[in-house]
């Protein structure tokens, strides 16, 4: 099979970008989308042209490095599947495929299809951690966790921080990502000490990065390669409201043990 690619080319953050069209060489339909880009790039390199820059790492749907908006949808046509796990058999011979980078003010373009997603890291640094005792590993199951909470926390922990939720949202909102991180830690006993500080800090960083707000359209949930649920955004909204109501606690005496 052969396809026509309409790809966003942009030299660097500050240069204007534009769409360029390329004809692919003959492809095997069982190639992944990224392998198809490899093949196209090989041909471009042979012709002395600049290859298309794109992000990838594990190529097995677990690292969250691959991105791309394919025909208007982050991570391509399927539900719960990342770009690296999308195969050419999902397209038809002769199709024109539009490939764009994730677009958001908080995700500046580095080159072509590669965007800078460090804003998500900074949100994590702001509160996506727990305080634990270092030293030998604790005994398994030494802290009881209700099964439902463990399951929900695992669902939230599936987030691979790819940023597709931001790319899909009409408001370029990072709510689903932040909600997944807040819920993952907030559902487990180990995350309780920082629970309310965490949600405030992460939301504040999210706002500072210039992401939009949530209109509950559900497009983030629809494109998430890990199918993280909008329920977690509600959980974050709830935790944030409780955190605001609690206020910032201050010591009521001069401090010290006595």
């Amino acid at each position, binding site marked *: 099979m052969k396809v026509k690619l309409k790809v966003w080319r942009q030299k660097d953050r500050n240069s204007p970008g534009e769409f360029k069209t390329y004809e692919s060489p003959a492809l095997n339909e069982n190639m992944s989308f990224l392998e198809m880009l490899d093949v196209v790039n090989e041909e471009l390199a042979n012709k002395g042209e600049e290859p298309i820059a794109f992000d990838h790492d594990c190529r097995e749907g677990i690292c969250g490095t691959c991105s791309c908006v394919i025909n208007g949808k982050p991570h391509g046509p399927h539900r719960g599947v990342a770009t690296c796990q999308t195969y050419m058999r999902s397209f038809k011979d002769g199709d024109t495929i539009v490939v764009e980078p994730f*677009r958001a003010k908080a995700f500046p373009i580095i080159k072509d299809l590669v965007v800078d997603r460090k804003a998500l890291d900074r949100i994590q640094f702001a509160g996506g951690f727990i305080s634990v005792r270092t030293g030998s590993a604790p005994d398994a199951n030494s802290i009881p966790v209700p099964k439902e909470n463990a399951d929900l926390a695992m669902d939230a922990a599936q987030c691979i921080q790819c940023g597709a939720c931001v790319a899909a949202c009409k408001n370029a*909102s990072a709510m689903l990502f932040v909600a997944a991180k807040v819920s993952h830690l907030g559902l487990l006993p180990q995350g309780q000490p920082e629970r309310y500080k965490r949600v405030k800090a992460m939301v504040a960083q999210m706002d500072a990065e210039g992401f939009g707000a949530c209109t509950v*359209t559900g497009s983030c949930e629809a494109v998430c390669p890990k199918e993280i649920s909008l*329920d977690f955004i509600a959980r974050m909204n709830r935790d944030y409201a409780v955190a605001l109501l609690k206020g910032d606690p201050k010591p009521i005496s001069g401090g010290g043990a006595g």
Partner: protein
Amino acid sequence: MSIVTGILKSSLGKKYIMAGTGALLLLFVIGHLIGNLQVFGPPELINNYAHFLQSKPVLVWSARLGLLVILVAHVTTAVQLAAMNRAARPVTYAPTENVSYGAKWASRYMLLSGLVVLAFIIYHLAHFTALVPGINGAEDFRKLRTVMHGQSVPDVYGMMIIGFQVWWVSLFYLIAQGLLFMHLQHGVSSAFQSFGFRNHVWWPRIETLTKIVTIAIFIGYALIPTAIYMRVVGADYADKVRAELKQDGTVSPAESPAAGKETH
């Protein structure tokens, strides 16, 4: 960070404002509908209600002021959020058919449906509250008065009947109700989400509740202009009022639009 700055400045806090003010406005919409459905009773019923409201100026004016504050908060926060959301994506995607995967139509056009409803509210206030002449396509409503408990009060029943017999007024009201329906369909369930009341057990229930409430509101409000325009309700009363107005020589239907223009 205090709770006030948290609510006013953060993206989540602004959604609390939208949800909270939206919920209060929804309560008003329901109460207002119940009041207006009295038009299906005898003329005295709704006129008596109007007389009751008029006799409690403090109550009515504080309610109006409260509603104004709530509405202003709802609209300004919406505009702020829209600006913030637009700024979050300075370069847009190439147009494809794929844009809305998973997103309901109503959810993508909340600002638009809201602004049309706002325009409707302004017209509606000028139409039936301020009684601005010349915008209703019928008589000068200020001349429609009736006597209730020995007091001269506005003939609300007459205004509604005569007002909705004008086809374009009824049509505009129906369009506005359609947009309000769309706005509420997304808004009511999302308000629960914004306050954090949602999980996989409750979400289907919340969506069903939203459907029931919004459909009931739409049918209730749409029924009023439709029934009046189709002369199912109050047609004789309207003819009687028109005839009286003509006899009095105070106003004739042909002159009223021109009279309205002069005062503008």
